[in-house]
């Protein structure tokens, strides 16, 4: 068992404050934690945090618009890979000219996240090598997460909308507001005259005029678009690849095709409204998303979740992890060219797990099962023809271990898989940590960082399980680590079924639809199947979150995609992407 060293309880406060007098001040607002850092000292502070205090992992970067104060705030959550809670740093900048130094050189994992914050808030990260929109397109006017920006079918600041009740006169939004009337472009942008710059000049990192290494022949580099409509991209996702022959010189991920501004919707919603929306982030593993969001809100509400509900939650989340990894392994094989036979063998057990979810929560994938302080419903009496407990016992003690063994016999020693995967897309541990990689991607590189141990939540401290790691960080290890994790998850499920109390409450307090959440901020994070899934929430004490941010592992993990693919052949891109395991619902949000 990998023991995680308990974090040394040294207050970084004193150290930081004395080191940077005047530049680092504790955040004194009620319900807030962490430090406010002066913008001009941010890079020094971050470097000191990383090099001297062990905060080597930048979990999340985002922005908040405090419109009443005329300020935009960049929010950073830094952690130690040895474990412990996140340290929150904030940098404030005036709304009119928000400039914050970029942390890309200190934490390369900030790359896409800073671009996202720029895209959504217009915060200019000085020194960022490639600061432009990432989820929206170039012809988009305004910064959509700013509080004064209104969406096309804007109806009100917060839900519930007045027009629904008591005078509910139904009008289709489309009829009320004609599409072309909603469109606004940035100053100087006219769509009629706009000639899309070629992708090449749009991404100045490419230089196609450079000749390839033709070994005596005169060759040119070639820019190829893989996607957005390509079966290997697992959704609508584009990779802009520069090739020298078949070798990849550069790769730039292009995303946002599935963007719906989940976070703006989340800020219009009430706290409870958001729960079913989280299902649609990583739609393969809705239970984990539910749990992450519920934890973030429960932290602010300070509710205690009943025992039985905690066990049910863990059971659901671990079964979700198994589902996700079965899909990830199955799809990786698809990407390697073994079309759907392994994928279908892999998801056979997933069907039964989904049956269980459906019988319990009412839906196979969009579960919407967790509530603040518990879960929506208790386990059902029966699942299909079986008694629920018999069904679950059979599944976690017999079927799942057997299915994983089967899959292992089927795939692990396969020579084709080995030759396609071993040594391809290698991610060294230092790079993995620097780029904020999370989940199986990080652990396959030998970094034993698993939030269930590093910063335990729910009741994970009660279970005996191993934080699996693999040493090589290639595609093969990422496949193996998922197999290991499925076994560990099955082990946790077995312990849940052994220890779960047979009766008792499943929800703290009475079901309430209009929860008020005390003012403050909270960052709830869980070890989702794809990595660290975090929810940053700011409440002002009302029924709607003031800020709702999702730290999406799929989004941050593909920051690395370009690095991993360089030097490999074009056919390996598909396998490397498959081994990272992304879901576009979460990447694009």
């Amino acid at each position, binding site marked *: 068992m990998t023991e995680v060293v308990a974090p040394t309880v040294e207050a970084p406060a004193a150290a930081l404050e004395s080191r940077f007098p005047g530049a680092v001040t504790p955040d004194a607002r009620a319900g807030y934690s962490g430090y406010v850092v002066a913008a001009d000292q941010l890079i020094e502070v971050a470097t000191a945090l990383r090099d001297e205090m062990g905060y080597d992992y930048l979990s999340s970067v985002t922005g908040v618009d405090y419109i009443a104060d005329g300020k935009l705030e960049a929010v950073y959550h830094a952690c130690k890979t040895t474990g412990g809670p996140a340290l929150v740093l904030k940098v404030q900048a005036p709304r009119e000219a928000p400039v914050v130094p970029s942390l890309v050189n200190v934490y390369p994992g900030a790359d896409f996240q800073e671009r996202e914050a720029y895209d959504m808030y217009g915060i200019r990260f000085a020194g960022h090598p490639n600061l432009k929109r990432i989820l929206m397109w170039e012809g988009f006017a305004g910064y959509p997460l700013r509080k004064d920006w209104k969406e096309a079918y804007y109806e009100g600041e917060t839900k*519930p909308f007045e027009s629904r*009740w*008591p005078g509910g*006169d139904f009008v289709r939004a489309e009829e009320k507001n004609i599409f072309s009337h909603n469109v606004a472009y940035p100053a100087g942008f006219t769509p009629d005259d706009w000639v899309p710059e070629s992708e090449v000049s749009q991404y100045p990192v490419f230089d196609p005029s450079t000749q390839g290494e033709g070994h005596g022949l005169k060759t040119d580099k070639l820019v190829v678009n893989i996607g957005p409509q390509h079966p290997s991209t697992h959704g609508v996702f584009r990779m802009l690849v520069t090739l020298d022959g078949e070798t990849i010189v550069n790769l730039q991920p292009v995303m946002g095709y599935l963007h719906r501004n989940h976070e703006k919707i989340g800020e219009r919603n009430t706290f409870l409204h958001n729960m079913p929306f989280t299902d649609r982030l990583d739609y393969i593993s809705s239970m984990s998303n539910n749990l992450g969001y519920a934890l973030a809100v429960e932290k602010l509400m300070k509710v205690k979740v009943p025992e039985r509900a905690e066990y049910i939650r863990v059971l659901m989340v671990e079964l979700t992890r198994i589902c996700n990894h079965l899909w990830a392994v199955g799809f990786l094989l698809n990407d390697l060219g073994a079309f759907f036979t392994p994928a279908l063998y892999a998801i056979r057990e997933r069907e039964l797990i989904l049956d269980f979810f*459906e019988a319990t929560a009412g839906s196979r994938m969009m579960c919407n099962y967790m509530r603040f302080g518990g879960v929506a419903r208790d386990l059902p009496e029966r699942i*299909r023809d079986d008694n629920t407990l018999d069904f679950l016992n059979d599944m976690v003690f017999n079927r799942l271990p057997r299915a994983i063994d089967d899959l292992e016999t089927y795939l692990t020693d396969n*020579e084709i898989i080995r030759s396609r995967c071993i040594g391809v897309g290698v991610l060294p541990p230092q790079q993995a940590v620097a780029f904020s990689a999370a989940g199986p991607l990080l652990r396959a590189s030998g970094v034993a960082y698993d939030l269930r141990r590093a910063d335990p939540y729910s009741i994970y401290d009660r279970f005996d399980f191993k934080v699996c790691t693999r040493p090589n960080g290639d595609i093969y290890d990422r496949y193996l680590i998922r197999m290991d994790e499925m076994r560990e998850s099955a082990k946790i499920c077995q312990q849940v079924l052994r220890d779960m109390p047979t009766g008792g409450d499943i929800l703290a307090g009475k079901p309430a639809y209009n929860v008020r959440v005390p003012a403050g901020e909270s960052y709830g994070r869980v070890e989702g199947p794809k990595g660290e899934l975090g929810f940053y929430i700011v409440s002002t004490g009302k029924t709607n979150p003031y800020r709702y941010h999702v730290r999406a592992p799929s989004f941050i993990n593909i920051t690395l995609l370009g690095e991993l693919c360089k030097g490999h052949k074009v056919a390996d891109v598909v396998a490397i992407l498959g081994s990272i395991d992304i879901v576009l619902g979460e990447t694009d949000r």
Partner: protein
Amino acid sequence: MYGLGIVKGLWVTVQHFVDTYTDDIRWLSKRYIDPDKLSYRQSSKGKGLFTVQYPEEKLEVPERFRYLPFLLYEEKPDGTKEDRCTSCGICAKVCPPQCIWIERTEDPVTKRPVPAPKAFFIDTDICMNCGYCAEYCPFDAIKMDHDYEIASYDRTGAHVYDKEKLSKPVSYYAGIRPTDYAAEEQARAEAEAKKAARKAR
């Protein structure tokens, strides 16, 4: 030996392949026509192919399955229908995508609200099947349906359900969700007994 891994993998494929045939033979031709066989095949005891030949075969949905809300009405002995809905508006407020529109009835003389909906719309294109309306309705007046075959040729109007299209009798509800129905009836009976006892005192 090089290639042994592939052979091992192929052996697994052969086993799956043989399983599908032996299972077919076991059921003879009944495998695909008998609904009982479908539920067995889909259960954890099933072997062989586990795909479902939709629409010839349909998977049984569990009781808690939720797909689009519907409104409940009581069938009175005299043949009239009485809506359970009091147009309190909780479902409209708790709906995450805000797909419920309710118009409250007003008394024509006093202009005061009457606890019954005058109009009730659900835009099923927007509905995300979360089930909150049913979960938080204090009158058990709106519940989630089991009927998932709602495709139509009209992109606009046909997907906006009005009160008439939404209303279904309580007996239908008791049929699709017997356990929930029984539990709710019991709770109601207990509450009424308590109320009566309090009155008697």
